[in-house]
Each structure stands twice: as structure tokens, then as C-alpha cells.
């Protein structure tokens, strides 16, 4: 992991790395702990896999801890996750008890580390209760919310809010995701790691091998959605859009590829529903990929003409960022962080219905020169705004700002 910064300098620019070093200089030796619920699967884990080593290379004493819990706990936190995104779930007494019990067990295990830390980042609702279980904490605690909290199911938010109100700051991906809390709320969109297996350049042979493996015809256009099998990603809507286009472009192919994160018990049911809907169509490829299928996903995105992310609700939508980085225009649901990334006629199109998606798919496939131009623009947009170095800069800025007594200006020299 040595010389990570030198590698990022070649992609993001030397000035970006210089900014990071300047911000990190007074933070050298600071103990920073990130806590989340899974080390594999999902965007949070992907970011932390490189964010933490980068912090270390900048001289921070950073580490990453993961919650442990039983099935009951992760069922509860899935309810929390769905409820915070607006789904009217009920949190039973047994759910609350398993949440409290698992929080207490994890606090017992992590208390010494967390109370000693200078900065603690708690990611999403699963570890949120740790704050109050560490009464002798000496550092700043930051609640990083990666999901869309704009319209939570109110009973669920009422349950969670007391756990997060006491943090020193919180971070949301978009302003509309923020809920009133008695501390500064930073707006820091997540990012992708351009050096990861998910995003680095692949040899053409590897891309071709992926096509062969999944029976994708390289001579025919392919559209792809890559996401967990989750109701909010609307995979059934993607199939509907594909079928609308297929009537006019019979040679179209579709890949729906996803996997399950270790904290997502509902994925299997959704996957089966997608398979049932796809039926016997040989041009629909429903792929259940293991969590470490990063290069495979990379190849699928690169072999697609267009990438879809037709989400109904979305936190940020890193799959959109990934596709744009690979110079693929994105047809995305008009929601959440997709709005920040997909700009009509520049990097893709935002749609609200399967019909809208079908319209844009047909339009782009009919205008290959525009498709290519938008892909080029999309990559430049990601380079400027959504690489890991930008997110790290903003986290470091937040850490400096909390020590700067709320001043709006941080002068580094």
C-alpha cells in the first residue's frame, strides 16, 4: 500500500495530493476509527477499503472496525434501513431488543478503542448506538449517513434519532437527505476508487472472457444494471424497459447483475422474483455474483453500451459513478444522488418510468456519436468531482473544521 498517493496523483493530479497532505499535516498521529456493519458488499465497504489506508499513508492512525451480530440483529437493521428510506416497516420489541443487545456486545468489544480515539466515524444506523455506550469518549464522533433519509417512516426515525442526536457532526450525501439535528450537518457525496478492481482499466481479453462466461454476444448491443437485488433498485422496471425496447431492437441484450451484502437478508427473495420475471428470455442474463466480483462487474460495465441505474430511491448511487468513470452514459432514476451525477444530455438521462428508460435507451442506441461524447464527458465529470481523493479531502476538512470552532474559513498557509 506504500506510495498510494503517488498512484492517485497520476489520476487525480498532483495538486489534489498536495491539498490532502496540507490538510493532514496537523492530524498526523490522530487516532481515527471507522465503524460499519460489513467488510464486504455494498458501497460503504468499498470506500473504506481504500479510504482507511489512504488516511494511514497521510500519517493518521486510522483503522476500520466492523460490527458483529446475529441474524436477528441484521434483520432488525435491515428494517431500520428500509424504514429510514420510507418503507412502512414495524419495529417489534424483539427487534429493538436485538438492536440493543448487539450494540451492547459490540460496545463491550470496542469501547477501549473508541473511547481513546480522536475521531470516530460511525457509518449508517447499525452502529449508531455505540456513542451512548462509550461515556468516557474523548474525541469527536461523526455520524456518516449513506442512505436517503429525506422521507423516513416516522416511527423508525423516532427510534433512531435519539441515538444520533448526540454526535458532534453528521454527514449526508445530499442536502435533501438531512434531517434536523442539533449539530453541523456536512454534505459530502461518496466517491469511487479509480485504482480498485472495480474501476481500473481491464485488458480486452478479460472483458471478452466475461462476455463468453455469461453468454453475451459481442456483436449485439448490451444494456446493464448492476446493483444489489433490492426493491429500491427497481430491477423489474429495468426488465419492463428492456421489453419495450426489444420490440424495436430485437437484438438487444440485458444484464442484471447483483449480489448480496452480508447485512441484506431480503436479497434472495428479490433475486427469485427477478428470475421469475425474466422467464426464459435467453437475452436477459440475471447474475447473482459473489461479493468479491469486482473485476467481473468492471468487465460487465465496460462491455455495455449503456448502463442503467433505475432506482426508485437511492442514497448516492456509486454504480452510476463507476459506469461514468468507464465512459458509459447512464440512464438513471430521477432520485437521490443520481440527480447529482446524471445530467441530461451531458452524462446520461434521468427517467421516472420504464417507458422513459426505454425511450432514452432507444435514443442513445440510435445516436452512437452522442453516446460516445456523453461517455467521455461523464468520465471527466467523475474525475473532477467523484474520486476518492475528493471525499478524503472533505473528511479531512470536516475533521479540521471541528477543531476550528465552527469557523467558515480554514487557512492552511
Amino acid at each position, binding site marked *: 500500500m506504500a506510495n498510494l498517493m503517488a498512484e492517485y496523483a497520476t489520476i487525480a493530479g498532483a*495538486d489534489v495530493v*498536495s*491539498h490532502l497532505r*496540507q*490538510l493532514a499535516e496537523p492530524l498526523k498521529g490522530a487516532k481515527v476509527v471507522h465503524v460499519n456493519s460489513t467488510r464486504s458488499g455494498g458501497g460503504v465497504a468499498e470506500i473504506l477499503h481504500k479510504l482507511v489506508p489512504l488516511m494511514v499513508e497521510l500519517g493518521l492512525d486510522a483503522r476500520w472496525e466492523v460490527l458483529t451480530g446475529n441474524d436477528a440483529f441484521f434483520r432488525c437493521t435491515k428494517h431500520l434501513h428500509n424504514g429510514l428510506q420510507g418503507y412502512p416497516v414495524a419495529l417489534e420489541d424483539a427487534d429493538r431488543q436485538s438492536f440493543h443487545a448487539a450494540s451492547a456486545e459490540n460496545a463491550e468489544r470496542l469501547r477501549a478503542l473508541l473511547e481513546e480515539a480522536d475521531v470516530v466515524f460511525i457509518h449508517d444506523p447499525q452502529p449508531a448506538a455505540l456513542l451512548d455506550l462509550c461515556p468516557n469518549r474523548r474525541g469527536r464522533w461523526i455520524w456518516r449517513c449513506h442512505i436517503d433519509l*429525506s*422521507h423516513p417512516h416516522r416511527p423508525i426515525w423516532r427510534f433512531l434519532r435519539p441515538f444520533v442526536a448526540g454526535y458532534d457532526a453528521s454527514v*449526508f450525501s445530499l*442536502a*435533501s437527505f*438531512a434531517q*434536523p439535528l442539533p449539530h*453541523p*450537518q*456536512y*454534505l*459530502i457525496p461518496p466517491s469511487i476508487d479509480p485504482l480498485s478492481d472495480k474501476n481500473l482499466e481491464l485488458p480486452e481479453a478479460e472483458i471478452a472472457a466475461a462476455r463468453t462466461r455469461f453468454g453475451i454476444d459481442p456483436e449485439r448491443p448490451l444494456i446493464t444494471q448492476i446493483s444489489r437485488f433490492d426493491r429500491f433498485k427497481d430491477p423489474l422496471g429495468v426488465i419492463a424497459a428492456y421489453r419495450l425496447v426489444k420490440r424495436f431492437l430485437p437484438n438487444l441484450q440485458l444484464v442484471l447483475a447483483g449480489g448480496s451484502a452480508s447485512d441484506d437478508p431480503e436479497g434472495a427473495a428479490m433475486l427469485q422474483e427477478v428470475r421469475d420475471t425474466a422467464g426464459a428470455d435467453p437475452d436477459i442474463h440475471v447474475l447473482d455474483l459473489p461479493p468479491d466480483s469486482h473485476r467481473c462487474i468492471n468487465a460487465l460495465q465496460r462491455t455495455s453500451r449503456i448502463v442503467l441505474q433505475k432506482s426508485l430511491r437511492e442514497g448516492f448511487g456509486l454504480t452510476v459513478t463507476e459506469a461514468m468513470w468507464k465512459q458509459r452514459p447512464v440512464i438513471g432514476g430521477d*432520485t437521490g444522488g443520481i440527480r*447529482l*451525477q446524471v*445530467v441530461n444530455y*451531458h452524462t446520461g438521462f434521468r427517467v421516472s418510468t420504464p417507458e422513459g428508460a426505454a425511450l432514452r435507451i432507444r435514443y442513445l442506441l440510435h445516436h452512437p456519436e452522442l453516446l460516445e461524447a456523453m461517455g467521455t464527458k461523464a468520465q471527466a*465529470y467523475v474525475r*473532477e*468531482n*467523484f474520486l476518492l481523493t475528493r471525499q478524503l*479531502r*472533505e473528511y479531512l*476538512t*470536516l475533521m*479540521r*473544521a471541528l477543531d476550528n470552532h465552527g*469557523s*467558515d*474559513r*480554514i*487557512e*492552511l*498557509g
Partner: protein
Amino acid sequence: MNATDGQPEVFAIRDCAMVALATGRRAQNLKELRAELQAVDTSSIYFHFWGVLLQPGFEEREYNNDFAEWVRHQLHDPVLAERLGVIDPSDYGDLEQLRAELCDAVETRLDEREIIAWSLPDQQFEFRRSQIVVFRTPDSIAEPADLPGAIGHMSTSSLFYHFIDARRRVPDGTDDFRAWLCQWGEEHRPLIDALAGVDPYFTTLVDLRQRLAALCADQLS
């Protein structure tokens, strides 16, 4: 950049970045917009006029401030959008005067309309503010003759810091280039006056950079 011992100091080029924060204030219609405009901290008003230049987006924008954009696209009120879009923050002595102008425009429109338009719930106007972090760079400008080349190679965020953000820092609301040139004496008065005539509002940072570099080259040749 103040002169010491009678000698102008070297112009140290800085760079900057912004991180945005939510204020917790939102508006879904004009009445709410009016109420929040009256109450919100002026730093938020500044952000929605100038901060957008450093936010993700494409150069081509229909309007140059967030208020006009939202009114047009979420309230579907092109009349008020145009009135808000033409407000130039450079014309106002301070942000309180700018706030007053915004409120007047919204109030006038409310008087004209009998139906209050609402945005969709997930398309409310989110009042944000920002914190700015200022970085060192290895670059500097030794003398005025170097200005055209230096400005031409500046990042857009550096340009923002020295030409736009400076107006909040430098006495009399001038920019860093003019403040520095003043140390070199009256021979550069024509360039100083020319720079004062550049309105940064109705242009993009890329175009502004080009324009300033050309202006400096022209005046210094």
C-alpha cells in the same frame, strides 16, 4: 500581500475548496422561500450565488444563482426566475442588501399571483452554506508582467479564491490582483481600473480566466 519596507511582496498563489453544509432550512413554495430568505444566515445567500461555481455541474447554466434555477424548474415560474436571474450580487454593497433585493422580488411576485405554486416534496429548495479551506501552492507571481501567464495557468478554484472570495477578505471589497497591483504604484492604475470593470457574475470561471489573462496581457503590453 502587504508591502513591507516599501517593496511589494510576491503574490503567493493560493488554491481553495469548499465543503457544503445543510442549514436545515427548506422551502417548498414562494411563501416559505420568502420566510427562509428573511431568516437564513447571509452565508447561505452567498453560497447560492457564488458557491455554485465550485460545485459539481456543467458550465452552461440557465441562470446564475440557485434561487432563479429552483423557481424556474421546480415552481415553474419563468417570470420570477428571470427577475431573480438578473440580480447581480456585485451591485450590492453587502449581503444584507442582496437579501433585501431577493425578498422584494419574491414579495412582488406573491402580490401578483393568487395561486401558490408548490414544488414536489423531494425538490424543495435546500438552503446550504459552506466552509472554505485555503491551500498553499508552489506558485507565485513576482511582478505584474508575470500576471497574464500566471492567471492563464491558474486553476479555476485558485481564480475563485483570488478574484471572487477576495471580495469578502480584502478591504473595500476589492480582489487580490488589484490589491497587489496597488503596491506597485500608479503606473498600473489603468490595469487596476480595467480589472475593476470585470463583472465575474455573468460568466463561467473558465471564461473569466481567459478574460482576465487577456486583459492583463493587453494592459501590460
